[in-house]
């Protein structure tokens, strides 16, 4: 069988370059297998993240031929045959070393999400219908590979936006909580004012790279935008809020973490 030629970006925050590696092709291999073979033979210090090697943990995100992919789910035989394969780290995040990036931006965003806040559990447990939980379940399939964050042009080429933009991964988190049958927090103002929902102009790049095929734009971001707009501009909703007691907590209240 022929060889696989791979150009892997090697370096750190101070800069780096592509190194070329040639390894014999093996049946059914994925990009991560080739990286592992390079580590075990030529370059034991080649840095990459991985855990499950089955597309379930979202650790091994990288850009393969310029496109964000999970290395463990990208079979070599699906890439153009005979052509060099280029593997680079995710571009939207600072480099730690080689293919490993500093994804702490995402963990900081996670800390800003007001916690799930259900009513007290009734005797015999909560009751929810399957159809209601399925909406949230779609978003909870997220494996936090952060490729949607990587590809999102609001932050990919605009470091300055990171301070006020939580990104697609967290828009689906907010959507999931908004749609959770039991949640009582209202995060709509927070999402609009602090998390930069308005900066997303629905180009669907995030949806295209999602390895879990979550319809990020259609099922989370657009409905979330609609809800936010409704909350602000819908005169009937406005009147309703004046007359009826709000059942959800406001953004300010929701932003305070419960004990």
């Amino acid at each position: 069988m022929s060889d696989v030629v791979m150009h892997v970006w090697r370096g750190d925050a101070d800069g780096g370059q592509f190194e070329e590696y040639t390894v014999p092709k093996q049946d059914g291999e994925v990009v991560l297998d080739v990286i592992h073979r390079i580590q075990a033979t030529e370059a034991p210090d080649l840095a990459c993240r991985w855990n499950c090697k089955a597309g379930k943990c979202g650790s091994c995100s990288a850009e393969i031929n310029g496109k964000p992919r999970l290395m463990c789910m990208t079979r070599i035989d699906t890439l153009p045959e005979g052509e060099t394969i280029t593997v680079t780290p995710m571009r939207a995040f600072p480099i730690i070393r080689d293919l490993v990036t500093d994804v702490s931006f995402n963990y900081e965003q996670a800390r800003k999400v007001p916690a799930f806040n259900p009513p007290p559990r009734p005797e015999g447990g909560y009751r929810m219908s399957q159809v209601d939980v399925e909406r949230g379940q779609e978003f909870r399939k997220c494996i936090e590979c952060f490729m949607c964050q990587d590809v999102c042009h609001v932050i990919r080429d605009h470091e300055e936006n990171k301070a006020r933009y939580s990104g697609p991964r967290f828009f689906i988190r907010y959507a999931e909580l908004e749609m959770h049958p039991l949640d009582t927090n209202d995060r709509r103002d927070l999402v609009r004012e602090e998390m930069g929902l308005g900066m997303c102009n629905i180009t669907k790049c995030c949806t295209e790279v999602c390895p879990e095929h979550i319809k990020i734009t259609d099922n989370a971001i657009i409905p979330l935008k609609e809800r936010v707009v409704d909350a602000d501009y819908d005169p009937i909703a406005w009147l309703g809020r004046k007359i009826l007691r709000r059942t959800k907590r406001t953004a300010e209240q929701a932003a305070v973490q419960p004990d």
Partner: protein
Amino acid sequence: MSEIEHHDYDVIVIGAGGAGLRAAIEAKGRGLRVALVCKSLLGKAHTVMAEGGVAAAMGNVYAEDNWKVHFRDTMRGGKMLNHWRMAQLHAQESPDRVQELEAWGALFDRTKDGKILQRDFGGHRYARLAHVGDRTGLELIRTLQQRAVSMDIDVFMECKVVRLTTDDDGAVNGAVAYWRPTGEFVTFGAKSVVLATGGVGKSWKFTSNSWESTGDGHAIAMWAGASLIDMECVQFHPTGMVWPLSVRGILVTEGVRGDGGVLRNSDGKRFMFEYVADMFRAETAESEDEADRWYDDHTAGRRPPELLPRDEVARSINSEVKAGRGSPHGGVFLDIASRRTADDIRKRLPSMYHQFMELAGVDITREAMEVGPTCHYIMGGVQVDPDTAATAVPGLYAAGEVAGGMHGSNRLGGNSLSDLIVFGRRAGIAAADRAESMAREPKLNQAQVTEYIDEALAPFTRDSGENPYDLQHELQELMQANVGIIRNEAEVVEALEKLDELKQRAANVAVGGGRAYNPGWNLATDLPSMLTVSTCTAQGARDRRESRGGQTREDFPKADPELGKVNFVQRQPSGRGFSSEITITPEPLPVMPDELMAIFEEESK
């Protein structure tokens, strides 16, 4: 040496899978200073790999279910080697722990009347596994992760603990670790330490486990004075992928069989009917018709033999392959395509569909999967007190896969996720109790700290030496060949000799490059734990001269009632650390009280 980063906490939890997160949440809830230290990014721990569900006798699908039935199933599945008290606590408390997850945001699949849906799994008499499709582990870890983040628990990610530190009285008082991104060391002082480091499976060639499962917790506990039990009991999950070679070992959930999938050999025969052990005969279907009726109504027939406990199914697959009735790539066929509609399969088993489609080019709604046994889980582990998860070392607690006793010689599917949340919580409570009772901050012994750091850095100091990857590769080949699913005296004795050689060679491993995110060095620091736990497993496999659950000896094919009354306990009585001697002694199992014994006696009448 320059100043080392240091942090003081009341409780540190090592490992951020289900058990570690649950322990940290509990201790933090008491208002203590809590740190969570983990080798990977938060949320990537091995718990995400759990697919099928979390076992809890909630009785939502079969009202007849209750903790006693779950207790009985767990003990029988473990071939009665389990610590009865752990099995009891687990069965009693898991329903509350599952409900609690829901209050923290988990979204389980529902029954028609809106309760948590439960699915069938091997060895469980009733449909008992709360689940979310086939990604229950992800749901569990994400729920706990989000809870932990909302509580503002300090998380040290990509930080590997190399050793525990101890005080003059032998109590644990902290840990020495390094940051993987920088290679810089960090020390922790702690009043209590909870180990939740998971398993050991990376020492086998074909495994469902990730690079993290190197037995760090087992090893550092033993090096700090704790005892390990039943390390020979290793579970080979019956259904791992076998092809392509590069994905060999990746898990195929038992949920496929729970939802109607059957195992066939190359003749197309459902061979499991030929392999029903006496212990399970009374409750297992005799014909395909009877088995098929059971799926819709558990009172209309007995259980299909495909849903026997995992050890039974794995051995049967092994036998079929050995007899020449295997699939083209050395497994057997797992067929759900001919038994359920394509829509059902995609809905119930979405990640299996995805996994086979992407990695093997197999559409499981149209064709059968090829599967075979893969190293999956270690039942043995650190010996703990059932109620508090306390180890023999004061201040040290262990929960989840790293702890032994709960599952006896074989774990039932679904009992792992429940184990994590039941005993994670208990470990957190006990660790918090101890921390609250201690007035003084622990003070680390700097000589110890320096010794452990030097130990970890040694591979950089050698100009020439072996590549750690070569050593790991040899270890995996050895454990696969000699201490695999079927064992015998000669092979395990040979394995022990070779393990001794590998230990010598591990002391001569050399790595190049810098300390920042250097996988070669990281592996070099994992090798001492891998070799320690592999030695423990091989010793146990040599001394337990019987076949029971995860220990199968072809030269002793039957269970020995006398050996069924003992745990094999391993310690380092003289000198602690990687190069010190490990002893193994049989010690009597704790005696089950009469009222629990009665559950089994009623049945045999």
